[in-house]
């Protein structure tokens, strides 16, 4: 177009989130943790299962948050990493008889490698181009899993059935409740590790790249390394979530990991607040429960109701749950002063 367009100063796609604003205070964290730990004692098994899925999706949203909110790279391909994690766990458990807990780190490592390798070509792409590339990955994954070549391992279109683990050491718990606490421990571990990652040297490098790539490289940040590293970490966490998801649902099939899943995770990130890690669980609650609520309001128009609810959320709080938390914090601060 015009010569002027060649030197536009463009605002960064993801606004800067200060490091401290990325987490919750210690007190609030403990309250949330206590609620998550006690809640399953009072509810039915099906609700416990839903809470397990809530944590699993929260992990996947958290992973996307590290990638997008942390390093400023956009991805619509998270469902592919989730699928790889789920299949790794399922294949190791069913074909090799491996213990379910041991399959998770392997799923994480394989997905980390996959994400790291995928991050290489993605290096040259940004914005919508990166979105398209990751989108292609998400579209291709279910088709690849269906290929006859892998059918012996993946079970083709039918997928694989995974056995649900019992509580160990003869603990008096239902399978669902055991799996919930198992997931909760892993989720907390990954959450703390992620926060520490973002506070570390690498985390600062991610954020420098997010805010201004050229300036970051001028400061001596190895842009290529940290961008692919962000992809790897994000994919690795998503892979662990995928493995947990396979164990919780007891089933993996190619059609469970379509682009719809990637879009859901993206919505979860936006609703929770981009770059605000605790928001991941809020976003995950949104993508698990709101479609059900929409279906409850109107069967025929569930899509429209979901869309309207989503619009309501982004109209009221365009920055997601982070905005709610910040307003609440300010009000608390005022109360303390008075």
């Amino acid at each position, binding site marked *: *177009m*015009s010569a*002027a*367009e*060649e*030197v*536009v*100063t*463009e605002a960064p*796609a*993801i*606004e800067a989130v200060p490091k401290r604003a990325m987490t919750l205070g210690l007190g609030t964290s403990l309250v949330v943790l206590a609620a998550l730990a006690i809640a399953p004692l009072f509810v039915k098994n099906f609700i416990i299962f839903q809470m397990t899925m809530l944590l699993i999706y929260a992990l996947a949203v958290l992973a996307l948050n590290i990638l*997008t909110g942390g390093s400023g790279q*956009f991805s619509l391909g998270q469902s592919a990493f989730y699928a790889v994690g789920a299949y790794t766990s399922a294949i190791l458990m069913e074909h090799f008889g491996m213990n379910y807990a041991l399959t998770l780190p392997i799923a994480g490592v394989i997905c980390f490698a996959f994400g790291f390798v995928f991050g290489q*070509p993605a290096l*040259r*792409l*940004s914005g*919508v*181009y990166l*979105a*398209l*590339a990751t*989108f*292609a990955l998400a*579209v*291709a994954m279910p*088709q*690849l899993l*269906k*290929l006859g070549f892998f059918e012996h391992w993946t079970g083709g279109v039918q997928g694989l059935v995974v056995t649900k683990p019992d509580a160990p050491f003869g603990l008096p718990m239902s399978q669902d409740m055991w799996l919930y606490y198992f997931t909760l421990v892993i989720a907390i571990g990954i959450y703390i590790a992620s926060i520490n990652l973002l506070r570390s040297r690498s985390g600062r490098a991610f954020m420098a790249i997010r805010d*201004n790539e*050229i*300036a970051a490289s001028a400061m001596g940040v190895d842009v290529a390394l940290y961008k692919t590293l962000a992809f790897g970490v994000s994919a690795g966490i998503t892979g662990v979530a995928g493995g947990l998801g396979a164990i919780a649902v007891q089933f993996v099939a190619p059609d469970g990991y379509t682009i719809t899943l990637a*879009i859901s995770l*993206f*919505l979860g*990130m*936006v*609703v929770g607040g*981009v770059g605000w890690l605790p928001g991941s669980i809020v976003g995950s609650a949104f993508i698990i429960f709101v479609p059900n609520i929409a279906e409850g309001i109107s069967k*025929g*128009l*569930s*899509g*429209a*109701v*979901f*869309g*309207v609810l*989503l*619009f309501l959320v*982004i*109209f009221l709080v*365009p*920055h*997601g749950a982070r905005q709610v938390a910040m307003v609440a914090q300010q009000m608390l601060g005022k109360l303390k002063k008075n």
Partner: protein
Amino acid sequence: MELFTNQVLAGIATGAIYACMALAVVMIFQAIDHLNFAQGEMAMFSTFISWQLMQWGLPYWWAFLATLIISFVGGIAIERLLFKPLAKAPILTNVAGFIALFAIVNSVAGLIWDFTIKQYPSPFGSSPFLGSQLISTHQAGMIGVTILLLIALYLFFQFTRIGLAMRAAASLPESARLVGINTSWMIALGWGMASAIGAIAGILIAPVVFLEPNMMGGVLIYGFAAAVLGGLSSPLGAVIGGFLVGIFENLAGTYIPGVGNELKLPIALALIITVLVVKPAGLLGRPIVKRV
């Protein structure tokens, strides 16, 4: 060799569909700087409106014209009601808004017109074109309309005051405001035009893929891919990208063993990404240089 020419011709025929959609995608990208994920659904809705008008007895071209006007106004209305309030929100929030719009339009269309597949008439007929079995007169007409549309858009952006104002508003909003351009209305105008072009695309595509609420799902993906391949800032690039994607897709399906219908899309996308890795701004796009 004959197989090859035939596949290329068939690719051009399907490519015309993608080119149409890609034009609409580029149009809105020019105006608002985002990809509108709901574009396909908006086009589908417009096509249903024209179908409904014809069911009520309006002749084809009157229904066509009325649909264009309704879509234009509808596009502006959507921008004013839903996206203007989000203008200050982060980009990713806007993308979530597009996804919400997608869900709403799809579900409302399904409720009004249900999900059965409907025939849609073509003004060009469907006999073989110039004796070739691969391109029908409708597809030839579609290619013709796409090219006409492209020329019209070029003239509009290059030689009219309002076209110039729209370009200014999109590339440098602050400076455009300083010289007295109402940038907010330029964005609304962009939405209206994109919606009208989408309606044309939908009406041209409907006789080929048949009319139903999910008709645009696949087409939009290819349309995006075509627009990105051609360069998002170039309408000509979008049209060329559309034809290339159509040809890619057909040749991959024919020559790479083991590629069924299912793997066509991933392979087409993979090729596009390969091109993008070499030329990150698309074939005809202009690389954007940022000031640090």
